[in-house]
């Protein structure tokens, strides 16, 4: 039991070290030069972009907009929610459950930072 725990700790330590070396992590970037991996992933970037132009979107509207499956949307929306980028509210319309998503201030700032980052990359390449 203790051996298994020690092994898990080692694996986790190794993963963290690998991520550090690659400058990759799951949450918000530590510096302005790092890409925010949380929204660099295509589907999550789509979710954030769609919510940026709407006060809120239901699960089905979001699924239709980013063209994905229920399972994929659930997984990625959950990651964004855990990162504090997206708010998720669950209500009932009669007897039908309704899930609505909206963008948080942190999510909007993350998208702005990401767009700035991409524009800076393009600008830098053009100068070269």
């Amino acid at each position, binding site marked *: 039991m203790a051996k298994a725990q020690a092994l898990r700790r080692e694996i986790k330590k190794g993963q963290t070290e690998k991520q550090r070396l690659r400058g990759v992590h799951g949450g918000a970037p530590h510096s302005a030069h790092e890409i925010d991996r949380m929204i660099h992933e295509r589907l999550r970037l789509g979710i954030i*972009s*769609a919510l*940026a*132009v*709407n006060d809120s979107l239901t699960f089905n509207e979001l699924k239709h*907009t980013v063209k994905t499956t229920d399972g994929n949307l659930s997984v990625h929306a959950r990651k964004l929610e855990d990162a504090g980028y997206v708010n998720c509210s669950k209500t009932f319309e009669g007897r039908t459950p309704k899930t609505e998503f909206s963008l948080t201030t942190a999510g909007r700032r993350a998208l702005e930072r990401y*767009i700035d980052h*991409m524009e800076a*990359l*393009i600008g830098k390449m053009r100068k070269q």
Partner: protein
Amino acid sequence: MIRLAESTEQPPALHDRAMDNLRYIRETMERASAFTAVPGWGQVAIGVTALAATYLAAHQPTARGWLGTWIAEAIISLLIAGWLMDRKARALGAPLLSGPGRKVAFSLSPPMVVGALLTVVLFRSGLTEAIPGMWLLLYGTGVVTGGMFSVNVVPVMGICFMILGAATLFAPAGWSNWLMAAGFGGLHIIFGSIIARKYGG
């Protein structure tokens, strides 16, 4: 044994990927904003002007006066819709005829042009009573096709217009002005309220 050819393709340049990401953000925003391309409350406003036009048209002594009133109403409605779409496009920082604006314009305009031409032909032939049904049918057709890029409720509204148009074609001529009120006034107000309440704006 099958030997795979060695890939000679270079990985995409960093700035190409950055441009691709920005394009993706913009396209997603355009697709998402189609939900409120013409806001629901704007459709309610168009419905209210249509009810006013019904009242004015009903009091016209001649067929020419009746037709002129409804044509003026169509122009006012187009101006309201165009202004609201332009406002939305400006808020997003995108040109009016890009993304959802272009899709809606290209879907709606062919039946509108057909409607305008048929109006001239039918009026000249003295078949004025066929015009209201034709207008409702063609407008419904445009809303169904334009609504394919929007939320489900929009094509449903188009189908309602088409059903009402079909009924108007076979209804007594005296009812046509009121059926126009039910369509251009009532349906716009009902569906506009639903869109405003459910999808915001």
